[in-house]
């Protein structure tokens, strides 16, 4: 066989492959989008089969198809696929952001009506169905106290638990803790409420209350901690695991004891992530209605004492006002919902800023 190869004509020198390729002009994508909208509108309104939503959906599909076809014809198959997937990914982002924008818009537009001094300065005490005023002062106090106490309980407990699992826990015990934390994540809030009702309100609270069971904001805080704890533990655990082992070894090699290494090197490194996890838990707890209803009872009056008598919360206030027959109630519910979202947002931003202050500027 070697002879045939030797007898072949010498090959022509290979052409250097061109690095240039045909590209669609810059205006192509917007032009196709515009055309898609026009065609979709013509089809939908021409046939009289739907409204603007169908136009948008149809236009998106037509745009994808048109873009693929145009790119395939001019630029080739790989470019066409790239463009189509890019367009799909961007649409996915828009789809995901749409509900958020919608929620914010609805809250702001409907909540602005009662965004006044009365709302933040008064409670619902002695407010009848025909009174247009009344406010959520008592609910804001309740939410802040309940979530604050719950955070005071869960943050130290959760972080210590995560430190145990990551840094010290070995074998079955640590495995069992992780497993039960996972199970706790799935506890529905109403069950947490029932647990505290059966355990704290009915069994323990009579001891402090002359033998009578009593609702309290503290009971609500306990129920919220049951819900917050697994989130705090799991997120802290993940963050601690992300701290590279060489950092710990670097500290050990300086003769720093393990507990101090964790406290001064590992925790500060993981702090921003831990704060994010805690704020997620806080946001979840602040939005819970059922446990507060079950064990704090709700109420119309301002009660600063979380250990005695009924308390309300913003989420519970929204629930009660939304179901109230008074024609002034829905506006109060919207404003309370807006307040709740704003509160969580402010707390999150504040916590992030605090966590960042500990980090050094680059």
């Amino acid at each position, binding site marked *: 066989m070697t002879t045939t190869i030797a007898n072949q004509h010498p090959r022509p020198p290979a052409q250097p492959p061109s690095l240039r390729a045909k590209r669609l002009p810059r205006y192509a994508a917007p032009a196709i989008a515009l055309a898609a909208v026009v065609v979709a509108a013509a089809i939908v309104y021409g046939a009289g089969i739907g409204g603007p939503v169908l136009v948008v959906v149809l236009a998106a599909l037509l745009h994808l198809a048109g873009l693929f076809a145009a790119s395939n014809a001019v630029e080739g198959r790989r470019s066409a696929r790239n463009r189509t997937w890019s367009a799909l990914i961007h649409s996915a982002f828009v789809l995901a952001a749409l509900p958020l924008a919608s929620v914010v818009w609805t809250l702001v537009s409907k909540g602005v009506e009662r965004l006044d001094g009365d709302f933040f300065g008064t409670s619902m005490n002695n407010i009848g169905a025909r009174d247009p005023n009344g406010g959520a002062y008592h609910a804001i106090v309740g939410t802040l106290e309940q979530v604050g106490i719950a955070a005071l309980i869960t943050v130290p407990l959760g972080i210590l638990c995560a430190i145990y699992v990551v840094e010290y826990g070995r074998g079955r015990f640590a495995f069992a803790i992780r497993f039960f934390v996972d199970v706790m994540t799935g506890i529905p809030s109403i069950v947490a409420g029932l647990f505290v009702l059966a355990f704290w309100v009915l069994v323990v609270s009579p001891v402090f209350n002359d033998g009578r069971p009593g609702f309290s904001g503290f009971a609500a805080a306990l129920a919220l901690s049951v819900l917050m704890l697994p989130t705090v533990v799991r997120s802290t655990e993940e963050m601690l695991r992300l701290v590279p082992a060489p950092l710990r070894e*670097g500290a*050990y090699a300086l003769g720093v004891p393990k507990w101090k290494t964790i406290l001064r090197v590992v925790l*500060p490194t993981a702090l921003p992530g831990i704060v994010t996890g805690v704020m997620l838990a806080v946001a979840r707890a602040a939005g819970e209605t059922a446990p507060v209803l079950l064990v704090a009872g709700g109420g119309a009056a301002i009660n600063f004492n979380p250990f005695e008598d009924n308390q309300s919360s913003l989420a519970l206030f929204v629930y009660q006002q939304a179901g109230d027959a008074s024609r002034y109630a829905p506006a109060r519910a919207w404003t309370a919902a807006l307040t709740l979202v704003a509160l969580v947002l402010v707390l999150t931003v504040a916590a992030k800023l605090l966590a960042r202050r500990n980090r050094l500027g680059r």
Partner: protein
Amino acid sequence: MAKRIDATNVTAYYGSFKAIENINLTVEPKTVTALIGPSGCGKSTFLRSINRMHEVLPGARVEGDLTIDGQNIYDRDVDVTAVRRTIGMVFQRPNPFPTMSIFENVVAGLRLNGLRKKSVLNEAAERALRAANLWDEVKDRLGKPGAGLSGGQQQRLCIARTIAVEPQVVLMDEPCSALDPISTLAIEDLMFQLKDKFTIIIVTHNMQQAARVSDRTAFFSIEKTGDPGRLIEYDNTQKIFSNPTQKKTEDYITGRFG
């Protein structure tokens, strides 16, 4: 102040895997000793067992005696943090603490062990940074994060951090393998200076480096994968590189194996 290290029948395990077996070796004070050998031969394991860093990994343990000036560091009543303060360690990859500034990194060992006095810390930081040949480069930005330095500077920062606690022995686990030639040269120069005060043991894959910096060289090797690493030959560096006694050592340093 530098100390003499005696290893007698040191055997180290990772779980049930025996990584090194019956290492016997004596390191004289104020010398540089290089540990060389093919990958996986246990030289890093041996190095880490000298300051009890080996046992940090789950399931890892050490048998045998390792004495520093006659004191066995594996005795039950030995405080492991005191051992590590006496025998410092520099790692393969620079690992400055990311949440700390350059200054805080250098004095981390002192501060985390309870030293608070600002003037003492300032003095210690300057002394350590000067000893690590880093002072001139960072003296104007001590408050900046340590992670913002270049790789070579970070490694010198880690050396400064190690010598700030004033150990007597400094262990270096391939300290130059992630560095460019200029930074490597800076660190090799540094080793010559540090030799006046410290006993230095360095693991290196670079035989020229071993020949350049060390007084004594220990050659480790394994029969085959899965076998424990053993000390094949330990002698003056010049002897090892010019006229080794063992055939294996000769094969390794001439590049015929490993």
